[in-house]
C-alpha cells in the first residue's frame, strides 16, 4: 500500500461532563492516490469527526486529539499549525459538506463566493478569478454559467447548489476530497447526476476521494474500497466486492439486512439494537452489547483488524476462531 494518505493510531476524545469519551480509535487506514474509499456507519459512529479531524477543523474543545498521526503526502497533518493547515485546506485537501443550503452564504451570490475562494487561495486578479469561476461552473455541468454566477443560494435547486459546492471544493486544485454524504436530502434522480459528476471529475483530475455515506448502495456504485465504522473503530475493511458480497463482521451483516428489499422479505430486526453508549474505555469488542455471536472473550479482549483474505480485514474474534 502506498503511503499517500495514512492514518496511524489516531485517537480522538470528546470532553463531556462525564469525563473524556473516545469517539475515534483508528489503528491504521491508508488510501492510495486516486482511489475512492467509502466510509460507512450509523449516525454517531464518528464519520464526520474523522473528516473534521483530517482537515483539522474539529472544534477543540470539546474535541481532543489524543494521539496518532495523519500522514498526507509524507507530512504529518497533526503536527502542523493552523496557519500551515490553512494553506493545505482548499489548495490540496477539500471537503463537500452534507447540506448545501447551510454551506453557502445566503447573502452573497454564488459567483462571488467562488471568486473569493479562488482569490483567497491563489494570487490572481479578480478578472482571472471570475474567468476561472465561469470555467468551473461549466465544468460541473451547469448550463448558462454567467447567469448562475449572479444567483443567490436560495434561487438554485438542491442539485445545483451541490454542484456549486463541488466546483468550490475543486476550485484550487485540491487532490484529496472528503465528500460527507454529498447526496443526502437530494432526490434519487439528482443524486445519480451528482455521483456521476464526482466520479467524472475524480477521473479527470486524479483526485483521491474519502466518501462518507450511510447508504451501502451508494458505496457499492461509487467506491473502490470500503470501511465499516462502528463507534469510532473500523470493524471491517476491504474492496467493495469483498465487504458487500461476502460480509464477515456481524455488524456489516446487520447493516446489509436493514435495507428494505421487497415486501416478502421482512427486515430481520433481531440484530438491530441501539448503538451502545460511548464509554471512557472499552475493554472488549465495542459491538459486544448488540452482537448475537458474542462469547465471553469478546467482553474482555478487544479484537484487532486481522487480514482474512488479502485486502479484506475484519475485527472479530469469532471469525478468526472459525478460520483457525
Amino acid at each position, binding site marked *: 500500500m502506498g503511503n499517500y494518505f495514512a492514518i496511524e493510531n489516531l485517537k480522538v476524545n470528546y470532553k463531556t461532563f462525564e469525563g473524556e469519551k473516545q469517539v475515534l480509535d483508528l489503528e491504521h487506514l491508508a488510501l492510495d492516490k486516486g482511489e475512492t474509499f467509502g466510509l460507512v456507519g*450509523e449516525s454517531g459512529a464518528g464519520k464526520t469527526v474523522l473528516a473534521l479531524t483530517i482537515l483539522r477543523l474539529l472544534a477543540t474543545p470539546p474535541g481532543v486529539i489524543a494521539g496518532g498521526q495523519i500522514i498526507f503526502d509524507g507530512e504529518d497533518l497533526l503536527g502542523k499549525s493552523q496557519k500551515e493547515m490553512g494553506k493545505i485546506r482548499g489548495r490540496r485537501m477539500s471537503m463537500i459538506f452534507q447540506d448545501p443550503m447551510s454551506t453557502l452564504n445566503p447573502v452573497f451570490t454564488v459567483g462571488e463566493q467562488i471568486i473569493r475562494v479562488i482569490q483567497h487561495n491563489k494570487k490572481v486578479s479578480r478578472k482571472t478569478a471570475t474567468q476561472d469561476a465561469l470555467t468551473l461552473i461549466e465544468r460541473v455541468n451547469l448550463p448558462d454559467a454567467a447567469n448562475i454566477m449572479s444567483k443567490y443560494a436560495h434561487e438554485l435547486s438542491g442539485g445545483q447548489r451541490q454542484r456549486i459546492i463541488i466546483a468550490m471544493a475543486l476550485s484550487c486544485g485540491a487532490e484529496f476530497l472528503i465528500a460527507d454524504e454529498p447526496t443526502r436530502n437530494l*432526490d*434519487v434522480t439528482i443524486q445519480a447526476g451528482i455521483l456521476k459528476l464526482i466520479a467524472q471529475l475524480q477521473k479527470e483530475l486524479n483526485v483521491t476521494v474519502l466518501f462518507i455515506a450511510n*447508504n*451501502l448502495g451508494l458505496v457499492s456504485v461509487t467506491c473502490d474500497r470500503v470501511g465499516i465504522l462502528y463507534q469510532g473503530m473500523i470493524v471491517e475493511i476491504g474492496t467493495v466486492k469483498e465487504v458487500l458480497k461476502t460480509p464477515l463482521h456481524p455488524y456489516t451483516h446487520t447493516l446489509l439486512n*436493514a435495507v428494505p428489499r421487497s415486501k416478502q422479505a421482512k*427486515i430481520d430486526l433481531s440484530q438491530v439494537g441501539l448503538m451502545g453508549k460511548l464509554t471512557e474505555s472499552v475493554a472488549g469488542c465495542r459491538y459486544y452489547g448488540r452482537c448475537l455471536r458474542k462469547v465471553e472473550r469478546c467482553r474482555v479482549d478487544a479484537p484487532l483488524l486481522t487480514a482474512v483474505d488479502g485486502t479484506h480485514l475484519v475485527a472479530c474474534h469469532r471469525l478468526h476462531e472459525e478460520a483457525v
Partner: protein
Amino acid sequence: MPEPILKVSDLKKYYPVRGGFFSKPVAWVKAVDGVSFEIQPGENLGLVGESGCGKSTLVTVVLKLEEPTAGKVIFDGHDLFAMHQQELRHLRKDIQIVFQDPFWSLDPRLLIKDIVGEPLKIHTRMGADEMLSKVEELLEMVGLPREGTFKYPHEFSGGQRQRIAIARALALRPKLVVLDEPTSSIDVLSQAQILELLKDLKDKLGLTYILISHDLSVVNYMADKIAVMYLGKIVEYGMAEMVFNQPAHPYTKALLSAVPTIDMQSLDDIATLEGSVPSAINPPQGCRFHPRCCEAKEICGQQEPPLLDLGDGHLAACHLRQMLI
C-alpha cells in the same frame, strides 16, 4: 368492494403568482392539477415523485390544511370541503400526519408528555392523571420507555424522536395516517426499526397509510399501491408489485433505475434523468414529461395522454403504452 376510506376526485390546487398593479394574479402555479385516487381501508398508498412534483401539496390539500382550487375529497363518507369548521375539527381526529423531520416537528420547549398529550387535550376531556397514563401507554406502544414522559425532545435520538411523532399521531386512534418521508432523515438501522414499527401498528390498530417518499425501496417495502406523480399529475398508478416489476411509464422507469443498490457494480448501472422538473407555471405542452423522455414521439409534444387502464387496475398516462393496447 367496501367503501373507500378516502376518495379524491379531480383535485386541483393552484397558487397565484401575483404581480403588476394591485397585485393581481398574473399566472398560476399548478401544484396539483387534476388528481384522482381511492384508498380502501387498510391499504397503504405510496406516493412517489421528485421534489416539486406536488406530493406534499396534494397531502396538505387532502387534509384540508389548505383550501383546494377545485375537486372533491370524500373521507369516510364525509365530503371534506363541504363541511363546517366545527365538524371538520371533529373529523380531524381520524386523519393524522407524521412529518419528515423529527428535529423540527417536535417543540423543543415541551415535555414529551405535553407533545404526545396535546391531541388528547384538544379532542378529549381527560384528566391529567388519565392523560399521563395514556401517554405512557402510547410511548410503550412505539417502543420507548415510560420514563420518557418527563423528558425533552433533545434527549432523544433521531429514530426515537420519530417514534414520539408517531405516538402523537396515533394518540387519537386515527383511521388514516399520512407519513411524509418518515425515514428520510434517519440512518438505515433506525429506518428499518421505524418501518417495522409502522407495519406492526398498522396490523394492531387497523390503520391506513399514505406514505410519501422518494426512497423507492421504502415505498416498495411498505405500500400496497403506488401512485407516481410528475408535475402535479399522477402518471402511473397500480399495485406495488406491478409498478415496480413492470413499470409502464418512462418516468417510473427512470426513477427506478436511478436508485443505486448493493447489487450494482458501477455508476454506469444507474441512469440519470436529463434536466430537472420544469416549472409548474408553464408546464410543457402535450405530455408533461416529454422534454425529458428518452422515448418521446411526435404525438407526445402535441396531446396530453390520459391516465388509462392497461389492465388489472394498472394505470399509466403514456401515449406509447396506450398505442400498444
